């Protein structure tokens, strides 16, 4: 590819990378390990995230073992229980969901969907992955450190996070904070890349308002992350200083086990503000890429343009902006000034409006469509159901006074698992079934996929829907044992056992998925370049899987938006974004592209 010839249709956009300028790998090591190719980095991110995600899955099994069958195994005591829930939560939110959506899907799809050759800063992109891997390794190291990992709860509230009454005070919390700091450094390197690539390296003709919603979701989520993670960074650094050097950023005067500690004057609630200033946007850092991806899955597999594209874009932007002014709805009963409740309840419920618009538009895209119930489509529909359910229970918790009895009960656990656990993970699965053919050139097995889908979707719903009612009853979260609670009837134990059994089954169903990923790599049916007959650019690459540089000698030129499905008068039911005329047999010519 050294003799690059560029397309004559349009000049390169400013900042676009010429193929000859790319650093092409010279050895196996630089091609597959220290790779600067965003696609390889995407696969590295995804595999690491899924590996650590499997750890989190096993942890959740152990949590459910204790909750469903208290005392059945002797190796889970209260100390271990709190370590399990803490590590499960932190891994899932940060090291799996954030890394997989942005590092995985972001790296793979941004250059390909925008018609770029690679990320704008490939070397920094490579560093981003290796620092992420280091962060994961530091996290894993805490399992083997003296005292074990921290059991402070994933929210890491001081003072307890760094005091001796909490498991993992010796090493666990220190490694946890260090790992978070590393993760944020690594993420920032990737995040800068995603934003700059979207702004600078789009193919000719790819205006912002022609971008697929997947890219809008990832782009906006990355901006949120770049603005929100620094708050967590600051919190982590300060808490680390409190723990190691005895400063008192978050530590007031404390009597611990009868002894006065040498802390004083700090504010525990300040940490909570910093944490949730990050923590709430984090929800949308996970949700917005899922919103974007699911829009494209629904549109492609319903053979219909996404309904209300412009509204969808503005909804993403509005949700992103509003997500920065709702954080204290996690703190209604934190002891902050109660008058904050009026403001944060209002902003929180207002955010439901753009979110509802998105749900309506997904559903209206199905209306009068040509619905193919492929695996990606099944996962997309399952996402709509679970996200709708989780979003609506958010209206309970966001409405300050309703939150008062429900906060920190199993209702909250059920809500956030449904809305930011189950729903985004269903999108991740849908996305993998959708793009695996492009990544590998082969289809995933349909029958294994069906098994995986039905077990995961129905199982997850059966786990988390009934759980809300335990919280309504008053069953608190983060309780190692609810033995002795007078209001918890024996039927609560029955329900807990049922939930645990279903959770074991759902976890086991993931084996079918992993086997499918490995098996189809060699034995899957050949996919061809565009098996779903999709419009977006990643399906129009000259080769599948696309090589380094993606496009061969000439960058694609974009003539239309990403959703020209079933256009009246067109020969086929889809028109690729880089096709100038609606009739594919016509030679490319100057055509006024519809907006």
């Amino acid at each position, binding site marked *: 590819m050294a003799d690059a010839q560029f397309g004559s249709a349009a000049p390169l956009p400013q900042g676009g990378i010429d193929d000859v300028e790319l650093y092409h790998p010279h050895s196996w090591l630089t091609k597959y390990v220290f790779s600067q190719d965003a696609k390889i980095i995407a696969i590295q991110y995804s595999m690491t995230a899924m590996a650590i995600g499997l750890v989190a899955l096993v942890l959740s099994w152990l949590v459910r073992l204790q909750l469903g069958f208290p005392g059945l195994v002797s190796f889970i005591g209260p100390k271990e229980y709190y370590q399990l829930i803490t590590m499960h939560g932190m891994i899932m939110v940060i090291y799996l969901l954030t890394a997989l959506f942005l590092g995985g899907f972001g790296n793979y799809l941004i250059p390909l969907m925008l018609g770029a050759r690679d990320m704008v800063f490939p070397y920094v992109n490579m560093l981003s992955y290796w620092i992420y891997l280091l962060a994961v390794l530091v996290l894993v190291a805490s399992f083997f450190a003296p005292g074990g990992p921290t059991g402070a709860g994933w929210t890491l509230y001081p003072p307890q996070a760094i005091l001796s009454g909490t498991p993992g005070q010796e090493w666990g919390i220190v490694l946890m904070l260090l790992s978070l700091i590393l993760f944020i450094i690594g993420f920032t390197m990737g995040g800068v890349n995603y934003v700059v690539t979207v702004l600078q390296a789009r193919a000719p003709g790819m205006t912002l308002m022609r971008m697929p919603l997947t890219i809008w979701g990832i782009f906006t989520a990355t901006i949120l992350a770049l603005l929100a993670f620094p708050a967590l960074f600051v919190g982590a650094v300060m808490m680390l200083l409190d723990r190691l050097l005895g400063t008192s950023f978050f530590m*007031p005067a404390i009597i611990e086990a009868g002894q*006065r500690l040498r802390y004083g004057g700090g504010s525990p609630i300040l940490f909570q503000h910093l944490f949730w200033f990050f923590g709430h946007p984090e929800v949308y850092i996970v949700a917005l890429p899922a919103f974007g991806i699911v829009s494209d899955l629904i549109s492609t597999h319903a*053979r219909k343009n996404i309904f*209300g594209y412009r509204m969808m874009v503005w909804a993403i932007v509005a949700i992103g902006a509003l997500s920065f002014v709702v954080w204290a709805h996690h703190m209604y009963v934190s002891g902050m000034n109660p008058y904050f409740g009026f403001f944060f309840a209002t902003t929180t419920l207002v955010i439901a409006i753009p979110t509802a618009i998105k749900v309506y538009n997904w559903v209206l895209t199905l209306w009068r469509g040509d619905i193919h119930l492929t695996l990606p489509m099944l996962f997309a529909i399952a996402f709509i159901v679970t996200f709708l359910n989780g979003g609506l229970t958010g209206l309970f918790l966001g409405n300050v006074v309703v939150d008062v009895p429900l906060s920190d009960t199993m209702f909250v656990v059920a809500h956030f698992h449904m809305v930011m656990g189950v729903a985004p993970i269903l999108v991740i699965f849908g996305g993998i079934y959708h793009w695996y053919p492009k990544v590998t050139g082969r289809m995933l097995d349909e029958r294994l996929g069906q098994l995986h889908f039905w077990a995961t979707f129905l199982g997850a719903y059966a786990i988390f829907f009934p759980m809300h009612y335990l919280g309504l009853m008053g069953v608190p979260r*983060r309780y190692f044992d609810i033995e002795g609670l007078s209001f918890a009837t024996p039927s609560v134990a029955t329900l807990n056992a049922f939930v645990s059994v279903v959770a074991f089954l759902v976890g086991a169903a993931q084996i079918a998925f992993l086997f499918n990923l490995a098996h189809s790599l060699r034995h899957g049916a050949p996919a061809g370049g565009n098996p779903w007959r999709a419009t977006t650019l990643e399906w129009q690459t000259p080769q599948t899987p696309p090589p380094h540089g993606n496009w061969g000698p000439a960058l694609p030129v974009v003539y239309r938006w990403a959703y020209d499905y079933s256009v009246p008068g067109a020969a086929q039911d889809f028109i690729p974004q880089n096709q100038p005329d609606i009739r594919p047999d016509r030679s490319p010519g100057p055509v006024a592209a519809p907006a």
Partner: protein
Amino acid sequence: MALVLVLIALGSIAFHLLSPWWWTPIASNWGYIDSTLIITFWITGFVFTAIVLFVAYCLVRFRHAPGRRAAYEPENRRLEGWLTGLTALGVAALLAPGLFVWNQFVRVPQNASEIEIVAQQWRWAYRLPGADGRLGASDIRHVSDENPLGLDPQDAAARDDLVIDADLHLPLGRPVKVLLRSTDVVHNFYVPEFRAKMDIIPGMVTYFWFTPTRTGTFDALCNEVCGTNHYAMRGRVVVEGEAAYSSWLREQTTFANFAGGGERGRRVARREAPPVR
């Protein structure tokens, strides 16, 4: 798939109506909270059922068949406008009662009597005002084996305060303002039957209020993770009539006469976790 979605919608409603898991009978004035919750159930339940059934309908009606082609309709401003408007209306219908009740939650009635709950890993202690009707000064500097709550021994108002190291008793029908104090980490005082709860932050005093409306004995839980024995940090609140309450009150000791402090303090220093019941 469509059939499954219909079953999910109807099954969820059936579960909601038939399941044995529901809130505990209320024992405070916060019936308004329950009402707001019910309104929320109605509105969200309606939206959930409607949308899931609509999706199910689409899956049947517009499923792929040979020769079928999707419609081409990028936008429909009118429809989008209507849906936005209706959603805003629904949100307002949730928010208005919510904020109305919150306005009561944040305004403590003038006649509320003050009590104090002091949390520490992993037990509860309580303080009631003495004969002077007010709680005296306290500071964490004063905490010792003999003075686990850190009351100011120089303050006359503190010396007559009642220090309670067992179940908390409350008189029926009188509003209480609960002041919350922690000597170590963040805790939360939660009695499900009262609905109200609040975090307890070391270094500051937080509060909430309620009026007990039903006699009985209720479990109090710590509801903010506070370390290894968080799940075992439980207490008990007894709500009783005026006569029973007065006789209980007479049996309580003042801070000045608090004899059990030493033994209790030493127990705490050894960090004996309370027994799990």
